């Protein structure tokens, strides 16, 4: 079930929330667990068993690690937990990619498994791994109540598209959270903001990219190619960050505090900064559980650069089983390493706008590897972007699309920056009666308008894809 659907907004959400708020506190986790299983089983009636297996498995491992704390068995159980998680992920996500690679290299003919990818598996396996690792390190207490642990793994707000919540971040909330009116209010507003980002912004600009992405790259003009990749950049940002907003908002309504996942990534003036603002919980996860255990920056420059490369290869492949995702990871590793070596210092001297333009170029070109997928397609699209396909700088088509989406692009750019937040903060803090009144008015009216508009777009639903099934 996706959040931006009639079935979620007008069936699941109201019925679930009424039950959740009505039952006494000690029953809330049970309702949340059952509701989450229903939510997941709606889209994955078979793989829900896989998620339950994963939950049970890591619950048992956590307890075993606790029981044998200090002994070698504890380490063995930690390794077993990680191996099982990675095997699950490997089998369902990477097996076919590996088989294809082996067949291609060795000329063998192993049949493909053709398994559909269980939704959210990349997210929940990372969450459960963070649990066993933290228990082993003593950074989190073992969870003895299987229901509380089940809630942590299966909780529907962040189950299928993040943010990736570490166990210790919600450890306290799992058994003693308070549901306050302020939290519900904040959560409801945050949810509507996310819904509007996904439905009003991402889906609409996504329609432009899906139109351009199927054109013949040998013939599209330079302008069309750039409009296309810009459209994709906005689509994935508003889609993904909108989904995170909805998750954080729903979490707040349930009494949880989830970590932030995006912080206006497109204003970054370096690639390093970009990855501190983009999908923060994923980069945070890799930093904590891969980069630092590998030695981070404490074992000399050479080792640090190697660690960066390893982390970004993994980040790349995490996003999808394909060579293009590996390449996408390497692409970022390359610029991060350059920045570590000297580039960051260069841009620190120059005006911020230089760094911003450079970062935008790196990110936009990066999205080509990310979204086009086939090597020929990527090469073709890059050629088109730089006019090497022999097509014109612009043509009738690009002018039409440019005109058609001009206003929309301005709106997208506006909301990708913190301007709105800045204005709202200024108005709220101002002492002038008018400004404050304006803020109060906007605060009351805007969420309701956004919600109604989002409903209109969802009902129209001519275009409502969900981008994260592959992650």
């Amino acid at each position: 079930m996706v959040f931006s659907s009639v079935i979620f907004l007008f069936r699941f959400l109201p019925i679930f929330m009424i039950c959740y708020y009505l039952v006494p506190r000690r029953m809330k986790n049970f309702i949340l667990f059952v509701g989450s299983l229903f939510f997941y089983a709606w889209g994955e009636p078979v793989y829900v068993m896989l998620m339950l297996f994963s939950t049970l498995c890591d619950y048992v491992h956590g307890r075993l690690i606790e029981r044998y704390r200090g002994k070698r068995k504890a380490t063995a159980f930690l390794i077993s937990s990680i191996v099982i998680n990675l095997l699950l992920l490997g089998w369902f996500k990477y097996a076919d990619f590996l088989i294809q690679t082996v067949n291609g290299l060795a000329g063998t003919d192993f049949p493909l498994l053709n398994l559909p990818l269980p939704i959210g598996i990349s997210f929940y396996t990372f969450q459960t791994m963070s649990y066993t690792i933290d228990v082993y390190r003593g950074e989190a207490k073992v969870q003895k109540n299987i229901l509380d642990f089940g809630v942590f793994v299966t909780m529907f707000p962040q189950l299928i598209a993040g943010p990736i919540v570490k166990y210790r971040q919600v450890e306290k909330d799992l058994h003693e959270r308070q549901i306050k009116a302020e939290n519900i209010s904040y959560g409801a507003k945050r949810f509507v903001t996310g819904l509007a980002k996904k439905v009003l912004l991402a889906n609409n600009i996504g329609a432009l990219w899906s139109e351009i992405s199927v054109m013949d790259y040998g013939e599209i003009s330079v302008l069309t190619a750039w409009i296309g990749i810009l459209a994709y950049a906005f689509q994935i940002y508003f889609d993904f960050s909108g989904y995170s907003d909805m998750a954080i908002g729903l979490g707040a309504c349930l009494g949880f505090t989830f970590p932030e996942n995006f912080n206006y990534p497109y204003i970054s003036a370096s690639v390093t900064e970009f990855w501190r603002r983009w999908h923060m919980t994923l980069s945070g996860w890799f930093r904590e559980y891969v980069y630092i255990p590998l030695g981070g920056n404490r074992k000399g420059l050479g080792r640090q650069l190697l660690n960066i490369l390893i982390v970004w290869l993994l980040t790349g492949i995490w996003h999808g089983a394909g060579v293009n995702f590996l390449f996408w990871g390497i692409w970022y590793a390359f610029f991060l390493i350059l920045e570590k070596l000297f580039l960051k210092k260069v841009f620190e001297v120059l005006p911020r706008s230089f760094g911003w333009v450079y970062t935008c170029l790196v990110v936009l070109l990066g999205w080509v590897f990310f979204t086009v997928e086939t090597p020929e397609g990527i090469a073709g699209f890059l050629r088109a972007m730089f006019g090497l396909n022999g097509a014109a700088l612009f043509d009738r088509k690009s002018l039409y699309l440019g005109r058609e989406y001009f206003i929309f692009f301005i709106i997208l750019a506006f909301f990708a920056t913190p301007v709105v937040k800045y204005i709202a903060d200024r108005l709220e803090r101002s002492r002038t009666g008018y400004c404050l009144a304006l803020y109060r008015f906007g605060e009351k009216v805007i969420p309701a308008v956004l919600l109604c508009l989002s409903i209109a777009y969802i009902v129209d639903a001519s275009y409502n894809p969900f981008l994260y099934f592959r992650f």
Partner: protein
Amino acid sequence: MSEKRNAIFTSGVIIFIILFFTVADFVTPDRLFSETENRILASKPEFSGEALQQGTYTEDYETYVTDQFVGRDKWIAVKTYMDILLQKKDINGVYLAEDNYLMEQHKPEDYPEELEEEKLELLEQLVQRWDATVMLVPTADNILTDKLPKYADYYDETGLLARVRELVGEKRYVDVYAALREHADEQIYYRTDHHWTSLGSYYGYRAWADATGKFPVIRDAERRETVAEDFLGTLHSRINLPMEGDEIQYYTDTMRNPVTITYDFEQTADSFYEEKFLDTKNKYGYFLDDNHAFVEIQTGYPNGKTLFVIKDSYANCMIPMLAQHYETVYVLDLRYFNGKLFDFMETYEQEGMDVLVLYNCIHFLEEFYYIK
């Protein structure tokens, strides 16, 4: 304290909206059919363990809930208004053209040369065997090109028409394109529908008469009468905004002589026009009782001549004019016919039977298909 009240007010409104529409949706009865969308809406799926396991049950259930959502038409209208506010000029595959015209979008890449090739081959066989006259009508975007949004792309039908002309020869080719171009400033296409108007088809008829050397029976473009003024056609359905309706008209001369029409071998009528359609959304069905696989027309005009028309819905408003020249007219719509075309035609063949292929260019590419 007031800050807290404010915050609670905002979320209260959000929660109210969601609950309100949830309850409203539960109490509104399901609709079978959507007039505005002109399609049957999804109904509640039947539960089965197998469907659940395959995921089709939940999928169907979601389609059902979305299709039946309370106020569906109004929500869609809100979305369309937003699109217009954002200066969008194409919505759901329809261009919002100048002077309140809606025009169907035909992208050049959807009509590649191979498709043209395939259809031309079929056409060639038909023309060779039956000495057929060919009349391909351009769509509105090709005639009212000036009204299209700036830089808008459209499939240019002149290339196809030139190839058809060359293929079938000057003698058998009716140049509707030139005829319509000449009258591009008149109401020759509906503003809200993808068909041409009776006036448009009149110019088509004159072009046909010129090409085949017939003396036109209807001599005056103005001899038509309006039977409905509130026709909102298929293109309007895709946009669903309040618009002024189109007029449905017919040529009075076509009503002068009695006719006997047999639809699909069973249902008979004594007029080309079916008034019952004027009370429905599908007012274009007024002409020749909407779409039928096979129509047989006896005019009682004893000249012994026969016409066999292979056609799409564009022909429906023009056939009453063509029929003025024949004793018998057969009308075949290939979309609803799955026998062998030539065998079928042979059973109706008479000495000197004229054969006419009458399509609009887009339907010709999309739907012209038969088995010899």
